[in-house]
């Protein structure tokens, strides 16, 4: 287990380091001068030269990379080009708000998705199972940005129950005002993922129910509830953990879209803002932070999987 942890931590560090090279390389090696991009097409040559000197853009690339990397390691993300503030605190505030959105969503996805999947598997072929299977088809295929439009149209415009966009901190609007702004973004984020998780839980649960150990448990005369809960469920949930980790990647993609539509001031909206305004320190920092979060989430999922799966826990290799 210790060796497994060490290996995973080493690969986490490798991914993050490689990501810094990738982000830095793509931003700096692509054709076009960075200063030119920041100042726009009508910039004078002097203005470009001044900015290049100010940003240290005339130094060799490896010097610039090292300056940026060592800054990152000290928690310094550089100065935002458009906000007159250091990029670090901007990124952290946005991260906290996105984490709320993502945290609430992933918990809902896990609870609702797994319950629906188990229900479908246990009542396989019933009317509710068939209805759920059909609904899953539909929910997986509808793009998040179109869900946003539909829920805004329905709940904000026609019914007028909830605010369409924006964000209120708890300090301003109280818990209710804060929660009201979360309902539509969260429901948009979870719809597709619930369909995904419930579908996979259903198939792994069906596989478990068909297995020999469940047959053996039934043959012992155990009540069906115990057979399902103690014997089938723990095995069926192992693949679900991996699926949830994959879904965090999809969730991050969804957050970029959903935050933009709902004007929710999180990391995704910040990233799109930074790209639109060519705020490079903010953009590069945001990408590194998102990669780090995603990699950490995957690490947690791997550890959880190893802890719950005896075949790995006892000392096999994690593929």
């Amino acid at each position: 287990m210790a060796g497994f942890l060490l290996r995973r931590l080493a690969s986490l560090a490798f991914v993050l380091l490689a990501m810094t090279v990738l982000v830095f390389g793509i931003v700096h090696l692509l054709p076009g001068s960075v200063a030119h991009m920041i100042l726009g097409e009508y910039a004078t040559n002097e203005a470009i030269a001044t900015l290049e000197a100010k940003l240290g853009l005339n130094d060799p690339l490896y010097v610039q990379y090292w300056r940026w990397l060592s800054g990152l390691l000290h928690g310094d993300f550089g100065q935002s080009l458009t906000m007159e503030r250091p990029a670090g605190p901007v990124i952290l505030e946005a991260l906290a708000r996105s984490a709320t959105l993502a945290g609430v969503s992933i918990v809902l996805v896990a609870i609702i998705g797994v319950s629906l999947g188990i229900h479908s598997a246990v009542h396989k072929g019933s009317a509710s199972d068939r209805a759920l299977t059909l609904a899953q088809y539909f929910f997986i295929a509808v793009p998040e940005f179109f869900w946003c439009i539909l829920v805004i149209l329905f709940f904000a415009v026609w019914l007028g129950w909830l605010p369409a966009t924006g964000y209120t901190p708890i300090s301003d609007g109280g818990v209710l005002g804060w929660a009201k702004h979360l309902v539509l973004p969260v429901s948009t984020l979870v719809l597709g993922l619930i369909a995904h998780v419930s579908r996979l839980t259903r198939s792994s649960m069906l596989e478990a129910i068909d297995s020999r150990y469940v047959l053996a448990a039934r043959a012992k005369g155990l009540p069906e509830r115990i057979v399902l809960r103690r014997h089938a469920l723990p095995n069926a949930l192992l693949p679900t953990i991996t699926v949830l980790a994959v879904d965090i990647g999809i969730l991050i993609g969804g957050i970029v879209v959903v935050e933009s539509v709902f004007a929710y001031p999180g990391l995704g909206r910040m990233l799109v803002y930074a790209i639109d305004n060519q705020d490079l320190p903010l953009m590069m920092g945001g990408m590194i932070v998102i990669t780090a979060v995603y990699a950490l989430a995957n690490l947690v999922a791997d550890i959880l999987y190893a802890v719950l799966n005896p075949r790995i826990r006892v000392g096999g290799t994690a593929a």
Partner: protein
Amino acid sequence: MSASLAAPGLRLPRTLLVGLVIVGVIGVLAVLGPWIAPYDPQDFSMRMRLKPPSAAHWFGTDEFGRDVLSRVLSGAHYSLAMGFGATAISLAIGVPLGLLAAFHRGWVEEVIMRGVDLLISLPPVLLGLLILAVTEPGLFKTILAVGLVYVPIMTRLARAVALELLAEDFVEAARARGEGAWHILVREILPNAWPPLIVETALRVTFAILLGSALSFLGLGPQPPASEWGLMIAESRPFIAEAPWIGLAPGLCLCLLLIAVNVVGEGLRDLLDPRLRGRGHG
């Protein structure tokens, strides 16, 4: 492809057929769009702003008085181009890399597969954003970005399939005949690797359309006045209360296309992947 699909005794399931027909119809409409559109999709008419659907304008008009039906028709080719173009790019780069990694065990494989591990550990949208962030957006850049995002998945699959095939007797026989690496990869491995690759490709098209239209929605795809469906939905947002049809029309078309492509992908998987075919009855 046609050889395995036309094999005797192999009937196309009904859902797969329905999916194929819908994708085919959308494809035909995308090609015929310029000729059958009732109006010029870029024709401004301030007198006709934000008109609801009517006999003259089936899907209504947008904020510039443009006919939404004509715009939806002229925009269909973007989604198809992004879905199939990006998937073709990921195949064209990923499959050779995967075959190479399977055949040249050692440092070639090590370099390719570590790169794949790295790129797979990034969320797809982030990778797409990174590629598009610092360049001028446009249709071909979006296709390229989406294609590159899915290269690692294709590489990993192609390598796994090739490794399995390399252990087969017919490859052993080719080696014993003294055939070269090129002959073995192209004449022995590739023809037998198609079924799983086709399945993955068909499923990948759905994700490519989704990712491409999401990037366009964020403003990183074709630029206005293009009638790409994701972009049309993004542009409809300020008018959602007074003229919801501007966004609903392209959105529903996009959903129909995605569901149809997904049905085709899953149908092909059930048809071509014998391991999963048996499990359907379990």
